């Protein structure tokens, strides 16, 4: 069926549970547009999300959607890709889901490099639990759990990904839909683990990192005349630079995917016929005589 789909075809009938003005609306909009532009098929797309306001996003994207437990979206997504390499696999979650409870899986997904796109919806707070500090919250950020100000240095997820061997590292801003859509398309097209960290403001709880604040603190790598997204040292420099938040594709590199090294060119596992017994089974026990 070659009918071309539009963004609307990736919408579900479920009404969103997000607050009016939440940055996450921009994310789902760009994602649907990207899916349509790339000619994805809902039936061949798996969308795995974590837990959080952000995690609700899988319910709003028409596909084989999975809303698992907190922090485990990446192990699920990695396995879905291994189980059926013909699927387009996208994972998404919040800064807490991905960088706090999911931090270990994040690092390992990066080094394994499965062909999965991972969208981190970063609002620098825990939205769904009503505004505690998150791994990306600023030092001194005052919340219910940090009335004296957050004492923890914010975690630089993208820098960590770069150090862990990331092959596609990008950052978008949810009020720049066009750029975000293009970035998502590039990420989905990237053969390997692609991270898109989206600055997605929480209008209800985060009164510091607002749309306005971001507009004042972001800049576009495309504006740096000689920025080379293949240069890891340069990528590290812009990522570690305090204060300024770079937007755009920060780093890309091609190395073998997890599937290519494990399943190689054998067919998608999910398609195998396991109902009829394999004649080679019996031979195995000869080793135990």
């Amino acid at each position, binding site marked *: 069926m070659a009918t071309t789909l539009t963004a609307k075809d990736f919408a*579900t009938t*479920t009404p969103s549970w997000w607050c009016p003005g939440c940055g996450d609306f921009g994310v789902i909009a760009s994602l649907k547009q990207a899916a349509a532009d790339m000619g994805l098929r*809902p*039936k*061949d*797309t*798996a969308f*795995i999300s974590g*837990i959080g306001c952000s995690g609700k996003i*899988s*319910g709003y994207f*028409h*596909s*084989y*959607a*999975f*809303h*698992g*437990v907190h922090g*485990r979206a990446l*192990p*699920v*997504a*990695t*396995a*879905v890709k*291994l*189980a*059926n390499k*013909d*699927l387009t696999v996208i994972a998404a979650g919040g800064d807490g889901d991905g960088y706090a409870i999911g931090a*270990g*899986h994040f*690092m*390992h997904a990066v080094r394994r490099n499965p062909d999965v796109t991972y969208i981190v919806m970063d609002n620098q707070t825990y939205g769904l639990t009503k505004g505690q500090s998150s791994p990306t919250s600023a030092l001194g950020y005052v919340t219910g759990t940090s009335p004296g100000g957050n004492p923890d240095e914010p975690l630089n997820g993208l820098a960590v990904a770069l150090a862990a061997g990331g092959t596609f590292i990008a950052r978008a801003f949810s009020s720049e839909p066009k750029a975000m859509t293009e970035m998502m398309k590039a990420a989905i097209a990237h053969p390997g683990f692609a991270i898109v960290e989206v600055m997605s403001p929480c209008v209800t709880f985060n009164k510091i990192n607002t749309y306005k604040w971001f507009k004042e603190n972001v800049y576009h790598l495309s504006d740096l005349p000689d920025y080379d997204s293949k240069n890891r040292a340069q990528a590290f420099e812009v990522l570690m630079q305090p204060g300024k938040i770079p937007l755009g594709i920060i780093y890309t590199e091609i190395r073998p995917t997890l599937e290519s090294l*494990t*399943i190689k060119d*054998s*067919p998608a*596992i*999910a*398609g*195998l016929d*396991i*109902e009829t*017994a*394999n004649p*080679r*089974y*019996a031979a*195995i*026990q000869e080793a*135990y*005589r």
Partner: protein
Amino acid sequence: MILNNVEVMFGGQAGDGSLTTGDLIAGVFKHMGLEVYTYKDFPSRIRGGHTNYVIRAGETPNYGMADYVDGLVAFDLEAVEKHIDEIRPGGFIIFDNSHDTLTDAVRRPGVHYYEVPLAKIAKEEIGLELVRNTVSLGVLSRLIGMDEETVFGDVRAVYQRKGDKVVDLNIRAIQAGEKYVDDHFERPSGYGLTKGVDGDRLIMMGNDAISYGALVAGCRFMAGYPITPATDVLEWMAKYAPKYGGVVVQAEDELSAINMVIGASFAGVRAMTSTSGPGQALMTEAIGLAGVLEIPLVVIECARAGPSTGMPTKTEQSNLNHLIFSGHGEIPRVVIAPGTVEESFYLTATAFNIAEKYQLPVFVLSEQALCQSKATLPSLDVASVTVDRGKLERNGHLTFGEYRRFAFTEDGVSPRAVPGTEGGMYLAAGSEHNDHGVITEDARNRAKMMEKRMRKLETMRPELPKANVLGDRSARTAIIGYGSNRGPIAEAQDRLALAGTPTRFLQMRTLWPFPEDEVRDFIAGADHIFVVENNFTGQLERLIRYVVGPLPNMHAVLKYNGKPFRPVEIIDAVASVVAGAAAPRPVGA
């Protein structure tokens, strides 16, 4: 003279190669036509520390150790000190006196001591101290009368891939051992072996059988994290699954492993993981997710002695409560427990059918004394294994909007679509959802959904593995147990019967959903009921109580020191109560 029935123990330091020799001897016994069971007792370290390997052979299958050791091959004094009181009166010890010397403290009347400078012989005559194990094999072979041809044949087979030099070295080592016996001792009258036919049999570990069963059942995805004694399964699958189009992932931890398994199953692949206590504990949250998502999966639990790190290489059955009751909220789940290596194969295959037909997590529960023990068994009938994927909608064409992933059905099972299927798109959410999969907190829907999920526990009952009933069904003394205790209990039964106390034994194979009728029927009319298990609190006995209440004549026979039961311990416990004791004492306490 005890013919064709011997239990040999190799005792030395971990990593000294006695495992290889032990396996070799187990093979020899099998090839001589005997039934074999082995038990590994090693420390949680790689080199050094006392370790011992028990190899038992007999004319009929024994799924456990005997009461006593017939012959101990001791590479150091510590081995003798640790095990001297396990030697059967009339038994013998082959002692390597190259470095240590026997003390009076370890001398017992009725025990024959054969002092042989194993290491010295290995070093001086063969030129390689390492082969002292093989020298000891020669000594043992001569003393109990192994078939020389078989021994040499097996040695060749085992060392072949290391080249002719190594083979030759080991053959000479054996001959040196034999010669030493001929020169110094006469063969003990106590033991003898006759060579029979091996026949259509295998010898493998419980973990081999579990893995093989999973592969044959169509398991094509496994994710796991190494942990003793479950790592064998991960390694077996890593070796074989790719040859059948599957994939095996060593995850970064068990949280990742179990979530990967859920992901693979969501995508339509038969998937499993294997772990032990600590890893199982970490999987708790995700098991609840699988339950509410109605995702089929199989978890192999190879239990070890807890709590916490506990004694990682020792056996225990203290994980049953966890498998049944852990997790917040309530989900349907299944726990089945093989009692032999053979059952480990067939029940694991069954586990996958139950998991997929009822769309829930199924635990296959084994423990160190079974999963890492080798035993002889009839060749496995792979052709008898069938694959039933239940209500799986694959590559079909569903009508989106009409299709309900979580449809309320009579049997509680709903049609399961997997990615790639036209029209089957849905949201698999760990939050409560309606029949379409849409998240809702509606109270009425919630109640219905809980009932639908839990209903599966009832509709599946007819398909769950039935218990084995052994012994005299009309006996007034009843014994209940599962897993590795099948062996010692069955053996205790025979001798209790001879001693005038016939017994009936319910070897449970489904532990959850709890087979209430099975147990109720079994214990009906018993004067005494003994529940034999390797834990402190009597976890199985507790489950039985729940069904029948605290019966004054029901007793838990418990052992929680990390060692499996020996038949005599069960016999004593039963006898003491039959003789009037209020309750049996914990064993080894």
